[in-house]
């Protein structure tokens, strides 16, 4: 092996290597650009953001409806505080107003209620305004002092509003037969 032999073999290998390197670098750059673009597309996709908001609304709505329809006798004040935490706007104002008499009524009857949302769907969502509506069916197991527990089935419409602390209920109404609507 002499120096001359090295030179003769190295030149094409070197040139080839350079071409290969440039090619690989270009391919990598293209791949990076493509995947970055894909990720950017997914992150800024309005439908995806809207779908995520819809599911957040549904989850929050279900949870808050269960909270609002549940109370434990003996821990009524606690329950009422939870009701207020699940609500906003007009509903919270109303709960504040009626809190004292609600507590008295519940304490007198010794009411314990456990609500479970059996089904729910978002029917309207305005992400810009931060408002949404959902419908839900709820089973509420109610027991009063000395009485046997009963199961109450309700169908509800609920209005939600986006707050700094997530989506909260601003109105809840039962949907009785005849299509009439009484807000509670």
């Amino acid at each position, binding site marked *: 092996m*002499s*120096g*001359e032999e*090295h*030179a003769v073999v*190295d030149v094409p290998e*070197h040139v080839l*290597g350079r071409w290969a*390197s440039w090619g*690989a*670098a270009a391919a*990598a*750059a293209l*791949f*990076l650009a*493509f*995947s*970055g673009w*894909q*990720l950017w*597309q*997914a*992150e800024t*996709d309005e*439908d*995806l953001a*809207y*779908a*995520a908001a*819809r*599911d957040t609304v549904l989850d929050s709505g279900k949870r808050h409806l269960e909270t609002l329809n549940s109370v434990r006798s003996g821990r009524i004040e606690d329950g009422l505080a939870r009701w207020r935490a699940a609500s906003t706007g007009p509903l919270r104002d109303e709960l504040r107003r009626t809190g004292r008499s609600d507590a008295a009524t519940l304490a007198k009857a010794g009411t314990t209620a456990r609500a479970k949302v*059996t*089904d*729910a*769907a*978002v*029917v309207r*969502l305005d992400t810009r305004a931060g408002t949404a509506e*959902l*419908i*839900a*069916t709820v089973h509420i197991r109610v027991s009063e002092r000395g009485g046997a527990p009963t199961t109450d*089935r309700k*169908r509800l*419409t609920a209005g939600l509003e986006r707050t700094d602390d997530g989506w909260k209920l601003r109105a809840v109404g039962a*949907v*009785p*037969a*005849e*299509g009439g609507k009484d807000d509670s």
Partner: protein
Amino acid sequence: MTTSTRDADTPAAHTAKTEANPAADAGRNQCLQLRGRLAASRVVLAAALAVAVLAGGLMLFGAYRLTSDESAQNHALTDREATEEVSGEVGDALAKVFSYTPDGVRATELDARRLLRGEAATQYRRLYGQLRKRVTEQKLTLTTRVVHTGVVSLDDHRARLLVFLDQTSTRDGDQPSTAAAQLAVTAERRGGEWRIVRLAAR
């Protein structure tokens, strides 16, 4: 012959060697340096490529996760047109199959045969089979009206809905009475139209 060649060769080779040595060494050094630099730049390049492939792969995976999760695959509300279409078709279907008049028993049955499939069709046949005679005998009328419809999940072929219904029933001559009904409905798209395949009371 061999000795003379060797004798003749040796000094020449020797002198050639001693003269060529510095040049060859320089060449070899250069070559080694070049090789070293090449090797170094290859390592750098390989590392950069590995990082690029990894980063790109991660980004692609991130994009895939964002676009393929359950929330993204559910087109309820995000596809407004499809949401309205399935709500309308399923609502109409329910109103039709859960409404009957003493004279229209056959029509209701035909609607049900067209609009209900699978499990829903079986359930309905069982229910309606018992009811059918009484409808004509006792002159029963049932009118079902859709109050609210919500789409829980929706894709190209399948949808889940929650429907609030009001059902007004009358027995011949009696006052009508209205009851609330809530149904969880599963529908499938067959031949471009939504058919109800499962019904469950809520």
